[in-house]
């Protein structure tokens, strides 16, 4: 089963501590998260033989809490994709329908959970890469507030946007893993102690996220943004609306809201992510680590050949577009405007959270793609990230929770909360799950 689905790039074990809150839990780790002594490929030919000399903070925290790592999961190359098809190690198949993609970029992680191979899996979410595969595979994925979880040991793609997040079969299991992963890390200067953040809610310092999965949404106000439903597949909209009605039946109230800025989120996200990628991936020159071409040319020619051989098409596309967006004459037109859009999106969400507790929408506006469907049309794939990218631009916490099925395929509902208010999105998600 597992081999057919192509869930893992490397199967290897890191034993967990004998006891702890996650004792007996098996964990799969996305292959862009460093594991000491176990190769970490990022789904790329460039790092096919790279063996990290240290483990990511999240890996240490999970194993110290008793979890056992069982392998490194397949992913879109360097996290760049929405289907797990850009992996140099072949596509992963969706356990719900093996002719369809599991979503991406953390597709191997979500599929491993959905197939019952592991209890919990780690993904990284730069523009939806935890929530998209969770939605497509019918499992739960949490994208934490930027700064809640350490990125030390995560191979960088677009570091102002990305967070490591847990994927599990239930909200409570994902939340229990988050409790272990969360908290400041001296090795990542962008991590924060939630209780010390101005404007965070009163419960922000309480790291027992699993306890928040109590299904109690009585009195909760749920914002429903028209922009994140417009243009979505009708079958998805219907399934998500039914799930929101279920929250109302449990005592929640819904309010229609508008987030006009999100119309520009995909544009802003891709400009910022590609720009950061062009910088971050400049380190892959074949000198200190990674593939090196067998080339005779000079320094620059050898780098260019190494990178031609080591990177796949989507990674090259993003490096080049990012280089273009940052180059003289275009910086103001693309990068600076994208930063304006990012600030606008953040402001829009802040204004909305003055009136509502959480914001609900489809996670993905479409049902899972068939394998091979979108590989030749990158822009079409980018547009599928319309509902997930605003959350990364605004640095907010979000959960994708199964809302039901449409035509036999999983549909995910996304719940977004104010910064560091993971507990409220977890609570609301647990109510959706209980229906």
């Amino acid at each position: 089963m597992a081999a057919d689905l192509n869930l893992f790039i490397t199967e290897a074990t890191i034993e967990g501590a004998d006891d702890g809150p996650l004792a007996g839990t098996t964990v799969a780790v996305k292959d862009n998260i460093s594991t000491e002594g176990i190769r970490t490929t990022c789904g790329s030919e460039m790092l096919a033989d790279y063996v990290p000399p240290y483990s990511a903070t999240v890996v240490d925290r999970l194993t110290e809490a008793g979890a056992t790592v069982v392998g490194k999961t397949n992913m879109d190359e360097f996290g760049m994709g929405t289907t797990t098809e850009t992996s140099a190690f072949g596509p992963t198949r969706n356990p719900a329908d093996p002719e369809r993609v599991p979503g991406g970029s953390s597709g191997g992680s979500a599929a491993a959970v959905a197939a019952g191979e592991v209890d919990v899996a780690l993904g990284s979410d730069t523009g939806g890469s935890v929530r998209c595969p969770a939605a497509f595979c019918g499992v739960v994925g949490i994208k934490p507030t930027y700064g809640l979880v350490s990125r030390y040991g995560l191979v960088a793609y677009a570091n102002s946007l990305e967070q490591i997040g847990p994927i599990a079969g239930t909200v409570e299991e994902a939340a229990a893993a988050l409790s272990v992963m969360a908290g400041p890390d001296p090795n990542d200067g962008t991590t924060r102690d939630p209780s010390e953040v101005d404007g965070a809610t009163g419960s922000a310092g309480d790291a027992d996220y699993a306890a928040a999965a109590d299904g109690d949404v009585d009195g909760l106000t749920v914002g429903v943004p028209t922009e994140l439903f417009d243009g979505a597949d009708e079958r998805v909209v219907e399934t998500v609306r039914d799930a929101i009605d279920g929250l109302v039946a449990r005592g929640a109230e819904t309010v229609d809201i508008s987030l006009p800025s999100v119309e520009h989120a995909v544009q802003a996200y891709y400009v910022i992510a590609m720009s950061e990628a062009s910088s971050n991936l400049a380190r892959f020159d074949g000198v200190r680590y990674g593939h090196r071409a067998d080339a005779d040319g000079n320094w620059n020619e050898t780098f260019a050949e190494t990178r031609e051989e080591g990177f796949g098409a989507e990674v090259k596309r993003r490096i080049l577009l990012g280089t273009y967006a940052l180059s003289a004459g275009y910086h103001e037109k693309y990068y600076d405007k994208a930063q304006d859009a990012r600030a606008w999106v953040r402001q829009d969400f802040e204004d909305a959270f003055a009136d509502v507790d959480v914001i609900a929408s489809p996670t993905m506006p479409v049902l899972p793609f068939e394998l091979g469907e979108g590989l030749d049309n990158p822009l079409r794939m980018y547009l599928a990230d319309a509902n997930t990218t605003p959350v990364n631009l605004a640095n907010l916490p979000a959960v994708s929770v199964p809302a039901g099925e449409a035509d036999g395929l999983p549909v995910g509902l996304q719940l977004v909360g104010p910064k560091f208010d993971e507990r409220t999105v977890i609570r609301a998600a647990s109510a959706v799950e209980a229906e």
Partner: protein
Amino acid sequence: MSDTSESTGDAGENEADDVDTSAGSDGSVVDADEVRHVADLARVRLADDEVDAFAEQFAEILEYFEALDEVPETDSEEELVNVMRADEVEDGLDQSAALANAAETEDGFFKGPKVS
């Protein structure tokens, strides 16, 4: 936030001039020469068929990015704080661990391709 020093630190001698030649054109049309130029800046060699495919895709993607023109100027009120630590020596990777993934080493150093 991103480590921009790395993107240009290894770059070639004429990069500033290269970039200037791309400035000034309008930006909505991308031809094969422009793709080759950007690939050269990014130190990524491309095959001819890749250049053609990218030129077509980039035109479509950049046209979509044009909509950013409609975004109003927005004040970013990012709360930023300095993150400090005591300036004390800590253990790092030892030399053999640091070199373990390198394609080529010599006398405890990384060995890169020839400079010219």
